């Protein structure tokens, strides 16, 4: 179906490429001079990276490169972690990716170096630092300077959107669910302050990321021609399709689809372009003031985290980020794949739908908390009061305070003193009373948090308010003691 005399639909395909370091089941506890990352992460993953390159990356690059010759265009958001891994274990794949990235119809996007959720960041300085590192890496490897920001999961907080101009980016990609009002038309160009905003079209993205692979879908198997036709019929200024590049590893069907797509787009009268191409097609003063967006995502990023485990891990990570004198390991812990693994199903769009059992999510959570706990313990010796840092640290699940009623878990557990205060705000009366009667809080403070002073104070508490106040006071005391002379300024960088 060729649309003649009508403005052609612009379609923009954005691929997200990331692979984080997998966590060890339990961190190594050796005092050696080895790379600290090695203590927490499986760093010898050459085989897996090679497999990723051979199974998904190289075939995808080849298919996309062929498409480019036929007028296709796309954008790549490549995390710094992945570039490092490829550089080390599959240099040929990195070279192929670099050739693709240098093509004039390919745009390289800015993204945090470690693919961390911006909602997790303790401060915007950390964000700027991570972006700067990424920009330098992209320039070195691909020879381009990104100008459009594609955050992991396309989830942006207001604070990050406000800081964006300082990174040199002029536009950002996100999803309607993070914006206000919530029912924005994803096919239009919006604005936030000086930055312009493009939105992912979730339904059309999921058609490729999830339904494409599902034989139960009534449109299965989806052909490139049908899809191009859907794009052509979508009114608006552009359709942004965001996909994980991992999807190409799921057999050859998607490769064949993208092989046929450039021709099909051409037949349907759809122009493939890049985010910058979309913005260039609309003059700089476009859009007007009525297209200003707001953000629903608070800085805690609660809405991204849908499970208790994710929430617990994210708050622990945020608290650790606020004091750790060296954040290098912390940055790798902020990678989104750790958090994805804590949900039984991924809810995001443009991602492969993965289903795992509850046990797997609990294991992923356990690995994460053990690593964070060990990291905080190790760093404790680098601040003024080691004891204070140990008491305030994150605890692995086996040391957590499990709230319970009649010996049955009530459904939540505190993995730090701060989380205990938070959970005391909603714990049921009989649960709290039971623990007070058995002096559980006091024993936990003494034996697990190693704080005899707090244990003595907690034993006097008769209700939840007293408990919370006592614990909060102690946290403030300990935080003052923990503050190391060197961490007064910005945290040290690697």
């Amino acid at each position, binding site marked *: 179906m060729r649309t003649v005399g009508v403005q052609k639909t612009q379609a923009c395909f954005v691929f997200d490429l990331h692979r984080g370091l997998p966590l060890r089941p339990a961190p190594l506890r050796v005092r050696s001079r080895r790379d600290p990352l090695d203590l927490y992460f499986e760093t010898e993953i050459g085989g897996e990276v090679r497999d990723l390159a051979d199974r998904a990356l190289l075939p995808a690059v080849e298919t996309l490169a062929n498409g480019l010759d036929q007028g296709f265009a796309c954008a790549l958001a490549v995390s710094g972690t992945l570039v490092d891994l490829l550089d080390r274990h599959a240099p040929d794949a990195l070279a192929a990716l670099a050739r693709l990235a240098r093509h004039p119809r390919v745009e390289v996007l800015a993204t945090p170096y470690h693919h961390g959720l911006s909602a997790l960041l303790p401060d915007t300085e950390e964000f700027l630092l991570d972006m700067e590192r990424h920009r330098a890496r992209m320039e070195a490897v691909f020879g381009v300077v990104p100008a459009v920001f594609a955050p992991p999961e396309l989830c942006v907080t207001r604070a990050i959107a406000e800081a964006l101009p300082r990174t040199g980016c002029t536009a950002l990609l996100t999803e309607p669910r993070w914006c206000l009002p919530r029912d924005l038309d994803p096919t239009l160009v919006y604005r936030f302050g000086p930055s312009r905003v493009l939105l992912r079209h979730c339904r059309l993205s999921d058609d490729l990321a999830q339904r494409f692979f599902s034989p139960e879908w009534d449109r299965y198997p989806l052909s490139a021609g049908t899809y191009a036709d859907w794009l052509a019929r979508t009114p608006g200024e552009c359709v942004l399709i965001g996909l994980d590049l991992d999807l190409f590893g799921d057999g050859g069907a998607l490769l064949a689809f993208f092989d046929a797509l450039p021709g099909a787009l051409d037949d349907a009268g759809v122009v493939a372009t890049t985010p910058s191409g979309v913005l260039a097609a609309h003059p700089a003063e476009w859009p007007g003031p009525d297209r200003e967006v707001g953000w629903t995502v608070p800085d805690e990023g*609660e809405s991204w*985290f*849908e*499970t*208790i485990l*994710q*929430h617990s891990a994210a708050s622990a990570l945020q608290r650790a980020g606020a004091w750790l004198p060296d954040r290098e390991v912390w940055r790798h812990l902020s990678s989104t794949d750790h958090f994805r693994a804590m*949900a*039984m*199903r991924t*809810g995001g769009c443009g991602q492969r739908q993965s*289903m795992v*059992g*509850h046990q797997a999510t609990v294991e992923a959570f356990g690995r994460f908390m053990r690593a964070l706990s060990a990291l905080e313990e190790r760093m404790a010796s680098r601040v003024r009061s080691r004891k204070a840092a140990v008491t305030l640290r994150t605890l692995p699940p086996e040391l957590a305070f499990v709230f319970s009623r*009649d*010996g*049955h*878990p*009530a*459904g*939540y557990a505190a993995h730090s003193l701060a989380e205990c205060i938070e*959970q005391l*705000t*909603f*714990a*049921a*009366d009989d*649960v709290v009373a039971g623990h007070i009667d058995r002096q559980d809080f006091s024993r936990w403070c003494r034996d697990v948090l190693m704080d005899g002073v707090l244990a003595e104070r907690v034993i006097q508490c008769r209700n939840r308010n007293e408990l919370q106040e006592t614990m909060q006071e102690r946290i403030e005391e300990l935080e003052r003691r923990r503050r190391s002379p060197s961490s007064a300024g910005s945290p040290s960088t690697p």
Partner: protein
Amino acid sequence: MRVGGLAPAATELAECLAQRGHEVHYFTRAAPGTEGDTALIEGVRYHFCRPEGTNIVDFCRSMSEQMVGAFRAADDPPFDVLHFHDWHAVEALHQLQDRVTVFSYHSTEYGRNGGNFGDWWEFREISGKEWYGGYISTLVMTVSHHTRTEVMWLYNVPEWKVTVVPNGVRPERFRKVVDPGAVKRRYGIHPLAPLVLFVGRLTYQKGPDLLIEAIPLVLKKRWDVQFIMAGTGQMEAELREKARGLPVQFPGYISNDAHLDLLNAADIVVIPSRNEPFGLVLTEAWSAGRCVVATDVGGLSENIDPFVDGIRVPVQPESIAWGINYVIDDPKTIRELGRAGQRKVYARFDWDLVTDAALDVYRRARALKARQGT
């Protein structure tokens, strides 16, 4: 919390009719504490009676007599149509059977007994009245096709006589913007823990025991799921005993506000009924945009499109657990099913549509009576 489908359905139908300019008189039992014999509420003229009796059957006989008395006093100019709801007023229907009458089955005694026959005298007495109501009234209304078939089978009501008029709902009354996390906190539940809600009488018909038996099977898959079973009933003590050690709360009777909060904060609403003529809980949950897991019975079976706007499962604990497990870890599907249900409520159960259907039955009843008279 209101209990049962009859009272709100009849009240709201009356209000809708009044809004359209009809004169509506509503004869009912006075709620405890009500003063006076009549009242005008939302355009509907209420006539209260104060029946007495040592058992439910005598009580309803006394109520019917008082209703007829109040009716005769108000019958000038004469009423065009008399609409009787359920067996309680069948004796009044008997005395007024020469008029244009419509008899509504909101449920049957057989159904309330969980789809079983009983051999005690109340069961026989009430079933007899239900048969007689369907026999002498001009036309009959049921709330679902399922109940229609049931009364045709149980009471030999001829097919031509029965019309299905579903219960309506006012979706805006059940929608409330709440912070689910905050509501869960109030019940001592982690703000991100998935919450499964049951609302209804804790009686055999509503199957709360089936849900409790399903809980361990849900926890096997995911241990952070929490359950709230709101409502009271004769099974409460037994259920509490059964649920010892499980993450279940029984808040008992809850206020309208608390009901709204819970309904809008829950992730899944489960309706494990053994028999459900219509299932107002379903349209209420849908109004709030909730994902519903319900048993494949009666009105629930009729109104839920499986996997489109809810999950429908056989009446057994294993299946109820399967239904909950199917959606519990998938927030996206939960939202989609809830939204689809909400759309259906607006398209099918809006009071405007239901009032049209009821008026149509009234018109046919009048025409029929007129033909019979000539």
